[in-house]
């Protein structure tokens, strides 16, 4: 039995625990998640708020970053007991291949080491000292950035470790932090808080990691009503329900589900390069079985290269097959298998009616590539290693068809020459795409990326300004005034 969460000041005996059971083959893991009463919620909220005010706010951002860096270093150390535990239990909980989790964790955690944290801060604040003290402003006067006293994160998803983005962003702006664990992966965030506690117990007292059942209105309301700022991840319906319960005086930062895709220019389709490009594209598809918002669901591939779009689809299929033996897909639930099957079936039958379409897939259904010559545009696939290759004369031709999905577009993995890259970037940005990266990097955004085009830290803070007038007036009251 693993105990999830982090509840500073509350004794475990005083709390009700519910058991979530995870199975993978013959192995099972029971995870106890806390179920708090309303008075416990109130107590915890007050404690986190007070601790953040008295402790966190007095630390410099550099000191906080140093503590995070030490915690991340422990998770990067393969001999550390926490890291060993993560490598053992996360595959069991999420179902992902153990090796994929191991490599994924390392790559992901690297984005939160000390130097990377400085990138996070520098991306959003020209002068990071503004988080510690009042700094002179170009327009005159002084300003200081304050994070919320109580920042509530509603996490979702089962990409291991995902909660770290927002948790760390909150700490860097010195916010008292309450995170709601996702039921699909309820362990990692609590572990991170505990590791922080081993390094700096007082800092860990500024964090609570809690759980309630998704959609439990009473529990949700209890927390939502107490937060200054709410960051929430999930589908739009879930987010809408949360927004309706966030007090109008609180700031709400929703991160909805997104769709991402890839683009391959003819310049990347010569015989020497196409194989490597397909390998990178396949890696983006296979990694975390397309559960991430940055996972590609369609590839637009330019015609008239040395390798045709149809051949590229074949390359991609080959690479997905190879990756399937290296990193097997996690076992699917019946409903996920149903989604994949109905997508496959639909693509296959379209092929009967239209010879310009084809479906490549293995008989066991562990991956599939649909190819179409028709002007099809972006379309969601069945997830879990299914993808569509759409042939286009020019990549730019695909852009107008994206416009209806502006609110849902996120990452584009792109293989194109510099001039094409910048021309496309302009067009894609204009229809709502917020991130372009190399193929093979779609699921690993760099440190300090602007998630969904927003500011990780800047969106969390409020500025307190001392206007020039106050400064000048103050002078008149100074003891040294003549």
């Amino acid at each position, binding site marked *: 039995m693993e105990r999830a969460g982090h509840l500073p000041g509350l004794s475990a005996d005083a709390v009700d625990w519910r058991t979530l059971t995870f199975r993978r083959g013959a192995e099972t893991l029971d995870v106890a998640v806390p179920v708090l009463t309303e008075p416990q919620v109130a107590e915890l909220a007050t404690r986190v708020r007070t601790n953040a005010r008295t402790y966190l706010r007095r630390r410099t951002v550099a000191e906080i970053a140093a503590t995070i860096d030490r915690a991340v270093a422990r998770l990067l150390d393969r001999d550390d007991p926490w890291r060993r535990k993560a490598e053992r239990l996360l595959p069991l909980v999420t179902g992902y291949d153990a090796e994929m989790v191991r490599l994924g964790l390392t790559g992901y955690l690297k984005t939160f080491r000390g130097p990377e944290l400085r990138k996070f801060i520098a991306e959003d604040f020209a002068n990071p000292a503004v988080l510690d003290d009042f700094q002179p402003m170009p327009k005159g006067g002084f300003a200081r950035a304050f994070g919320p006293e109580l920042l509530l994160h509603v996490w979702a998803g089962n990409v291991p470790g995902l909660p770290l983005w927002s948790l760390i962003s909150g700490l860097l702006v010195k916010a008292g932090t309450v995170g709601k664990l996702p039921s699909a992966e309820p362990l990692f965030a609590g572990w991170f808080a505990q590791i922080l506690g081993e390094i700096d117990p007082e800092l860990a007292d500024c964090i609570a990691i809690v759980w309630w059942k998704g959609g439990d209105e009473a529990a949700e309301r209890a927390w939502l009503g107490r937060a200054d700022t709410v960051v929430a991840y999930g589908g739009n319906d879930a987010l809408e329900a949360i927004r309706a319960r966030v007090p109008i005086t609180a700031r709400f930062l929703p991160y909805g*589900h997104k769709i991402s895709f890839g683009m391959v220019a003819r310049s990347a389709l010569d015989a020497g390069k196409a194989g490597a490009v397909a390998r990178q594209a396949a890696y983006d598809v296979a990694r975390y079985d397309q559960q991430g918002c940055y996972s590609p669901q369609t590839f637009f591939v330019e015609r008239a290269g040395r390798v045709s779009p149809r051949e590229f689809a074949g390359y991609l299929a080959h690479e997905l097959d190879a990756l399937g033996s290296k990193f097997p897909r996690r076992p699917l639930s019946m409903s996920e298998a149903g989604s994949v*099957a109905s997508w496959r*079936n639909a693509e296959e039958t379209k092929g009967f009616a239209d010879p310009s379409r084809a479906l490549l897939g293995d008989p066991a259904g562990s991956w599939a590539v649909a190819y179409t010559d028709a002007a099809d545009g972006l379309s969601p696939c069945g997830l879990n290693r299914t993808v569509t290759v759409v042939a286009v004369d020019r990549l730019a031709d695909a852009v107008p068809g994206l416009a209806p999905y502006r609110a849902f577009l996120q990452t584009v993995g792109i293989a194109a020459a510099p001039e094409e890259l910048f021309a496309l970037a302009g067009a894609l940005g204009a229809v709502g795409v917020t991130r372009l990266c190399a193929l093979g990097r779609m699921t690993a955004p760099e440190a300090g990326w602007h998630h969904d085009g927003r500011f990780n830290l800047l969106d969390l803070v409020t500025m307190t300004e001392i206007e020039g007038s106050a400064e000048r007036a103050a002078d008149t009251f100074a003891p040294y005034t003549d």
Partner: protein
Amino acid sequence: MTEARLVEELLAFIAAGEADEEAFNRMALAVFAHQFETNAPYRRFATQRARTLRTVKSWRDVPAVPISAFKDLTLSGRPPEECPHVFMTSGTTKGVRGKSHHPTLAVYDRSMTVNFRRRFMGEHDRLRMGILFPTEQAMPNSSLAHYLALAKSEFGTAESRYFVSDAGLDVDGAIAELSRAEATGEPYALLGASFSVVHLMDALAERGRSFALPAGSRILDTGGFKGQSREMAAEEFYSRLSATFGVPRRLCINMYGMTELSTQFYDDGNEACPSVKSGPHWIRSRVINPLTGQEVPRGSVGVLVHHDLAHFNCASAILTEDAGVEVDGGFQLLGRADGADAKGCSMAVEDFLKAARAS
């Protein structure tokens, strides 16, 4: 075998009252042979899966067409223009509707009536009926409209009537009929789409009305909610149904059918949910893993495949998108088998379509 001969044999098969494995197999192979020979897209589909007249030896080998294929392919042995009856799905995704062509409704109608008498009518020959669905004239391509019209004409008394018209749901008419049944003690049957039943229950609740229908009264609902009314869990739906109309839950019967079939499944009431559904001897079901096509071990959840010999013109074997589990006496239906538990933050088809429709 000519189509006329096949129809004749099917009618006799239905009339036989039962079929063992061998008899079912023989009929299934005849139906498959007919479809393989007359239905070019189906032949392409079967051949692609290496299922031909030579390799298909048992009804289990007959390749099942995914239900979505009815949207993209014209699956009809007879050219569509020679089929006077076309049933279409309600078709919410992308506005494309799945079609089932019927050169004759003789088999469909026989399948429906034999089964309906046994599973819904109980000891009654005829019942006074109220129908919560539009008429066949209003919805000529709806298999459900045809089904309910058939129920009314074959098993309803002359006073049976519809409560749904262009003007919408006739709540006053329903209240008058239900009150009358209550007063006379004559058993009453209420039949319709599940969502219409919800609308009626909501309207009655608004007026604070409920009924205690006479003993022997029964309710048939079908088709789920399809976004046309709020979703209700089965448990809540049947307990409210029973409370609103005073019909015991064992006489609240759910019919499970689809446009892509010619035979319906029934449960024996909904005292416990999910109920056990079963069909007559001319339809058999399997529970498979949708990705591999293999049958799952008995008792495990999979996707339902139905082999409906009465659906002779299009494809008698269909792969549904419904999750189910095989149990004693039939199967339990567990809802749709796709898109329910996406875990990550990657956008799924459903949301995408919603976005596309909104823009």
